[in-house]
C-alpha cells in the first residue's frame, strides 16, 4: 500500500500559542489514489486543523505545526516553500469547505471564481478558463450552467453553492481532494445528492479523498478507511468495516451509542458524559480518560496506537476490550 500511497502523513503535531499540550498530537495516516478516508470526531477535536495544516492554511500565529511530515507524491507539504505550495494547492490538491455560503466570495461571479483557479494552475487564457468553468458546472449537474456562470453566490441555493464549490475544487483535476464537512449545512435530500455526486466524480477522476464529518451515517456511506479523532489524536483507525463492525475504543463505542437509531425505539440513549476538555485543560495520558467509564491508572500514560491486525489500530490501554476483561469501574464523577 505504501508503494502506491499518494499522501503519507506522519506525526503531525500542531501547537497553539500559550498552550503547553499540542492541540493536534501526532496525527498520521496514509492514503492511496482513489481511496476515501473519513475523519470523524466531535466538534473541536482537531479535524479541521489537520486538513488545514495539509493545505498550508493554518492561521499562523497562533497556530504552528511543530512536527510532522506530509509526503504528497514524494514532496513534503509541510516543509516546502510557500511559493511551491501555492502551485500545488488548488491544482493537484484541492479543498471543499463546510459553509457553502461563506466560503464563496459574495462579490465575484461563480464563473470567475472557478475560472481564476483554472487560469492560475493551467496557465490558460480567459476564454478557455471560462469554458472549463462551464464544463465543471455541467459536470456537477447544476441546471442551466451557462446562466449560473454569471451569477453571484447569493443567487444560488445552498445545494447549488456547494456544487459550485465542488466544481471549483475539481476544476484542475486534483489528485487529492480534502472535504471538510461538505454537507453539514445541507438538507438530507441535498446531502444525498452531493455525496452521490462526489462519489461519482471521484470514481471518474480517481482522486484520493479525505472527508471530514461528524456524521457517522455519512462515514458509513462514503468511507474506505476511517480515522476517529478525539482531543487532537487519532484514537482508532481502520477500514470502514473494522471500525463499524468491531469498534474498540470506548470513545468510538460511546459515539456510536449516542446516535439515535432509526429502528424501533429503545429507551434512553447511551451517551458519552461530559464534554471534550478545553485544549488548555487536556488530561495527561489518554485524553479520553476524563470521560471514559473504563479508565484506570493505566490511562495516565499516552496509549500508543496499536495495531490489532489488518491495519485496525486503536489507542487504548484496554484494547481489545472484552466483556470479561472489563477493567475496574471508575466511580469518581466529573
Amino acid at each position: 500500500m505504501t508503494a502506491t500511497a499518494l499522501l503519507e502523513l506522519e506525526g503531525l503535531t500542531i501547537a497553539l500559542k500559550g498552550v503547553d499540550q499540542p492541540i493536534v498530537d501526532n496525527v498520521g495516516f496514509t492514503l492511496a489514489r482513489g481511496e476515501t478516508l473519513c475523519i470523524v470526531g466531535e466538534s473541536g477535536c482537531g479535524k479541521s486543523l489537520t486538513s488545514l495544516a495539509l493545505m498550508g492554511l493554518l492561521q499562523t500565529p497562533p497556530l504552528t505545526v511543530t512536527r510532522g511530515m506530509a509526503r504528497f507524491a514524494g514532496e513534503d507539504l509541510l516543509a516546502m516553500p510557500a511559493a511551491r505550495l501555492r502551485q500545488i494547492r488548488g491544482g493537484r490538491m484541492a479543498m471543499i469547505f463546510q459553509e457553502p455560503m461563506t466560503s464563496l466570495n459574495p462579490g465575484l461571479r461563480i464563473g470567475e471564481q472557478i475560472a481564476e483557479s483554472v487560469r492560475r494552475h493551467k496557465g490558460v487564457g480567459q476564454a478557455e478558463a471560462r469554458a472549463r468553468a462551464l464544463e465543471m458546472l455541467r459536470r456537477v449537474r447544476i441546471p442551466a450552467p451557462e446562466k449560473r456562470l454569471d451569477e453571484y453566490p447569493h443567487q444560488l441555493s445552498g445545494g447549488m453553492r456547494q456544487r459550485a464549490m465542488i466544481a471549483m475544487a475539481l476544476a484542475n483535476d486534483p489528485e487529492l481532494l480534502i472535504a471538510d464537512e461538505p454537507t453539514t449545512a445541507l438538507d438530507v435530500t441535498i446531502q444525498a445528492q452531493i455525496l452521490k455526486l462526489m462519489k461519482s466524480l471521484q470514481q471518474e477522476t480517481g482522486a484520493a479523498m479525505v472527508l471530514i464529518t461528524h456524521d457517522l451515517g455519512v462515514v458509513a456511506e462514503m468511507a474506505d478507511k476511517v480515522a476517529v479523532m478525539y482531543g487532537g489524536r487519532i484514537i482508532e483507525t481502520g477500514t470502514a468495516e473494522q471500525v463499524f463492525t468491531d469498534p474498540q475504543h470506548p470513545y468510538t463505542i460511546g459515539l456510536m451509542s449516542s446516535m439515535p437509531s432509526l429502528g424501533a425505539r429503545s429507551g434512553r440513549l447511551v451517551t458519552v458524559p461530559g464534554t471534550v476538555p478545553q485544549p488548555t485543560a487536556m488530561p495527561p495520558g489518554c485524553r479520553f480518560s476524563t470521560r471514559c467509564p473504563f479508565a484506570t491508572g493505566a490511562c495516565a500514560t499516552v496509549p500508543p496506537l496499536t495495531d490489532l491486525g489488518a491495519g485496525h489500530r486503536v489507542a487504548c490501554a484496554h484494547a481489545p476490550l472484552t466483556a470479561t476483561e472489563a477493567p475496574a469501574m471508575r466511580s469518581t464523577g466529573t
Partner: protein
Amino acid sequence: MTAILSTRGLRKDFVTAKPLFGEATVVQAVAGVSLDIAAGETFAIVGESGCGKSTLARLLLRLIDPTAGEVWYKGEDLASLPPARLRALRRDLQFIFQDPFSSLNPQMSVGALIEEPMRVHSIGTRTERRAKVADLLTRVGLRPEHADRYPHEFSGGQRQRIGIARALASGPTVLIGDEPVSALDVSIQAQVVNLLEDLKDDFGLTLVIIAHDLAVIRHMADRVAVMYLGEVVECAPAGDLYAHPLHPYAEALLAAIPVASYGARPARTMVEGDPPNPIAPPPGCKFHPRCPYATDICRVERPVLADMGGGRTVACHRATELSLQGLADLEQARTPAARGRFALYAQAMADKTAHNRPE
C-alpha cells in the same frame, strides 16, 4: 385524543420586497396548516430547510402574527388574543431555541435568565424563585452555583440546558423546541435528548419538536408531521411513518438518510433538484416537479389532507395506489465481541448515572 394545541387554516405570508410601485413579493411560509396536538405527546415536525417549520413554531406561540387562521389553546384563540392576555398565557407555552449561543442574553447571569419568566409572571417570592432556580439548574444537570455565571462561560450543551431550564421556569404545559439539538454535537445531542425526555415525563409536558435529523425524530416523537413548502403533506404516528410512508416526499426523505451502519443500504436520491421557489410555488401538488410518481392530476389539482385511518393523514392523489418504501428494521452489523463491548459500555453508563447524576 384531547388536543391541547390546535391550529386551523394557519397561514403566514412574508412580504419580502415591496417596491414603491407594483406588486409586493410575498412568500407563503406557512400555507394553511391544521393540526391537533394531544396533551402529553411528543409531536414532531420535519421537512426540508425553508419549508416553514420555524415559522409554524413561532405561529403556534404567536411570536409572530398569523396572516390568517386560528391557534387554539385551552379554549382560547391565541391568534386573536389581546397582548396582555397573551403575555399571561406565555406562562403555559414555552419555547426552546435552536442556537444555544444566540438565544441567551449575554448580559444576564444564568440565574437572572432562569428567574426572569417567574418574575415576569409574578411567580413566588424572591427567595422562592431563587430556590426554584437552584432546583431547575439541578434538574437540567447543572449546579446551583452556576446561577451567578454568565452564558458565555458555558459550552453549547450546557447553554442549551440553561435554555431548557429557562423554558421550564414558569411551569409550562407545552414546550416547543425549534431544532433544540441540531446545533449540538453527537454526544451532547444525546445528552440533551435524554434530558428532554426525562423532563417531559417528570413534568407531564406536551412537547413539540422541530428537527431535520430524522433519527432524533424517530427516537423522540410519538407523532410526526411532514411539511413541504408550507403545507403538512403527511401526519402519522412515528413508527408507521418510518415503516410505511404514504407520501412520496416522506419516502424520499427517509431514503436520503445515510445510515450509520456498515453495509447498510446506500442513501438514495429519490428527488432531484432543489425545492421550488416558495415565492412562486408550482400549481397542483407542490411536490409534483420533483415527485417520481407524479401524474397529470398532480400537475393541476392540489391534493388535500385526507384521513387514511389509523391516525394517519396524507395529502397525495395517489396515496392509496402507491406502495412506498420505508426504513426496514435496521440491525447494526456488529461482531459479537463488539456487541458485548456496547452492552458493557451501556451498563457502565447506566451504573454511572445511578451513582451520580450526569454532571
